[in-house]
């Protein structure tokens, strides 16, 4: 087990990357603490899987270094790095039994059959696979197969990191939570560093202590689920995480006063930090918007009921502002105004949150 550091990482699938868009990973410095549960979150095609394959050693980065602890492993193969990876689609060796599947990585490394047997049985009981050990792996359900994939990683003692590449994609919805809580449980029991790649925010936020949001080959934010929710570093994070996403409204700043369509808005942004000439936006999550007697006057356009609460869509001029209303709250009927909670109202300059340095 080890801390994982990525330094000055860049990767391109082209032999001769010329322009910025040729890079799948544009520039990246990241570290994952030993024994942490992490998620890599981002839309499809943002470079998540590329990054994962660089960590596992299936891809060699065009530039930059990968450290496991103090050791530079950039040049090492996947087998030498002693990592485990669970793929999007279950990978099992069809002709082998569950037992032989789990024993495969150990036998490949020349371990004695007695040690193999002990280890396989230990891991099988950890994953609740005891009963199916003698069955053919091909006959198992998708979640059973994913457990085998995971088990093939776990049988090797002291794996440096276990990586999951959207492992729940092919799992039935009612089994997803079971497998997910199994992963959580394993993390608690084994304390292995885990990296979980997904485009599903619920999966990421429930699994991880630290979430790294990637967009277009760049890390837009790395932080705890609470950070991502309350203080999105970039409008992309605000929009991508949360349902519905963050409201983004065009803003102007004069003498340190933030205005939206002429209305003064109090924000969490430090006054001095507003750069000049940038495109400014106010960002506030629907959770932190409420009806009030004074504030931004709006008209209500649409109300949709999600079951837990209602999403109210309102309009001021060209801008749409959404807010959440509890089931028991009464929808105002007359002319209404909106109030934004100042501690959770952010100011963004060219997409990045004012008051922080872009990463």
């Amino acid at each position, binding site marked *: 087990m080890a801390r994982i550091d990525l330094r000055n990482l860049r990767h391109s699938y082209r032999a001769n990357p010329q322009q910025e868009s040729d890079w799948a990973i544009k520039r990246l410095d990241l570290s994952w603490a030993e024994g942490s549960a992490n998620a890599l979150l981002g839309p499809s095609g943002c470079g998540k899987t590329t990054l994962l394959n660089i960590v596992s050693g299936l891809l060699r980065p065009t530039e930059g270094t990968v450290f496991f602890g103090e050791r530079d492993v950039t040049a090492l193969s*996947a087998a030498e790095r002693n990592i485990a990876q669970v793929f999007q689609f279950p990978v099992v*060796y069809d002709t082998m039994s569950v037992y032989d599947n789990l024993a495969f990585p150990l036998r490949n490394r020349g371990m004695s059959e007695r040690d193999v047997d002990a280890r396989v049985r230990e891991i099988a009981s950890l994953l609740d696979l005891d009963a199916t050990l003698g069955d053919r792996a091909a006959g198992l359900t998708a979640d059973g197969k994913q457990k085998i994939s995971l088990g093939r*990683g776990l049988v090797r003692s002291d794996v440096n990191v276990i990586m999951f590449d959207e492992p729940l994609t092919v799992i039935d919805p009612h089994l997803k939570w079971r497998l997910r809580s199994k992963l959580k449980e394993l993390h608690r029991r084994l304390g292995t560093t885990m990296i979980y790649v997904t485009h599903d925010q619920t999966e990421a936020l429930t699994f991880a202590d630290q979430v790294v949001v990637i967009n277009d080959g760049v890390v837009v934010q790395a932080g705890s689920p609470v950070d991502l929710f309350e203080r999105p570093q970039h409008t992309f994070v605000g929009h991508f995480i949360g349902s519905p996403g963050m409201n983004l409204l065009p803003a102007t700043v004069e003498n340190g006063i933030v205005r939206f369509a002429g209305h003064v808005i109090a924000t969490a942004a430090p006054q001095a930090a507003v750069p000049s000439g940038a495109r400014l936006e106010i960002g506030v999550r629907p959770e932190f918007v409420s009806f009030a007697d004074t504030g931004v006057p709006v008209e209500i356009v649409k109300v949709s009921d999600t079951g837990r609460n209602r999403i109210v869509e309102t309009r001021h001029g060209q801008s749409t502002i959404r807010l959440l209303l509890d089931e028991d709250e009464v929808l105002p009927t007359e002319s209404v105004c909106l109030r934004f909670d100042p501690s959770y109202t952010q100011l963004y300059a060219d997409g990045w949150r004012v008051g922080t340095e872009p990463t």
Partner: protein
Amino acid sequence: MSGKTTNQKAWWLVLPVLLFVAFNAIIPLMTVVNYSVQETFGNNRFFFEGVKWFEEILNSSRFHEALQRQLMFTATILAIEIPLGVLIALSMPRKGPWVSVCLVLMAMPLLIPWNVVGAMWNILALPDIGLLGHTLNAMGFDYNYTRQPNSAWFTLVAMDVWHWTSLVVLLAYAGLSAIPDAYYQAAKIDGASQWAIFRYIQLPKMKRVLMIAVLLRFMDSFMIYTEAVVLTGGGPGNATTLLSIDLVKIALGQFDLGPGAAMSLIYFLIILLLSWVFYTVMTKDEEQ
């Protein structure tokens, strides 16, 4: 009653297909069955003979020898073409511009008419002027496929391997291309050797297409006629007289309709039986 109307008129719609199948399969087959139990005389006179021709064929050493040669030929080419085809498919590039070049090159022999293949190899193997025959003799081998049974067999097998290994390659390649990258990646992480990757990933994933390859090559090689006739004509002597060549000699050469028909049916049943055996054996563990 469920309230459904019973309308038997729909059967008329099946009639065209029924007629078509009758004319191209049932009637010819039944004609053969009919011939196989009759003795023919001039003026189209027929006498019922029962299973006499079947007994005669099954007891004739001529048939036994042809069948043995046939089994030998099929076993030889299967033993060469299947492993060779898999090997070539494994070494073909999986990505890049060379893929289509390789595929086209591989498909080429399959596009050549069978009698042309026979003629090509006939000329190629001529001991005095043929490229292959002349080279072999120049290298010190005593090679003459029109006189020596061994040379004739070698040429026949070489021709079939040249003509048909491509089919196995293309099928095996299709099977290989269908394996997702994740399998290879998982194998890398598991520290699998090249052999283990072949044994536990590639071979199981190719199994179905290989079954098709074996069945196709078995049936086609068991019925080989054109190429062999053009190349050796069944000779020297009867050394390369395979079942189909013998059948044509009996049915058309000697015009023995009864024995010819009986032999056709036996031939047909052998192919059917062996195909069933192959299929059953190769799909056995999928039913578990």
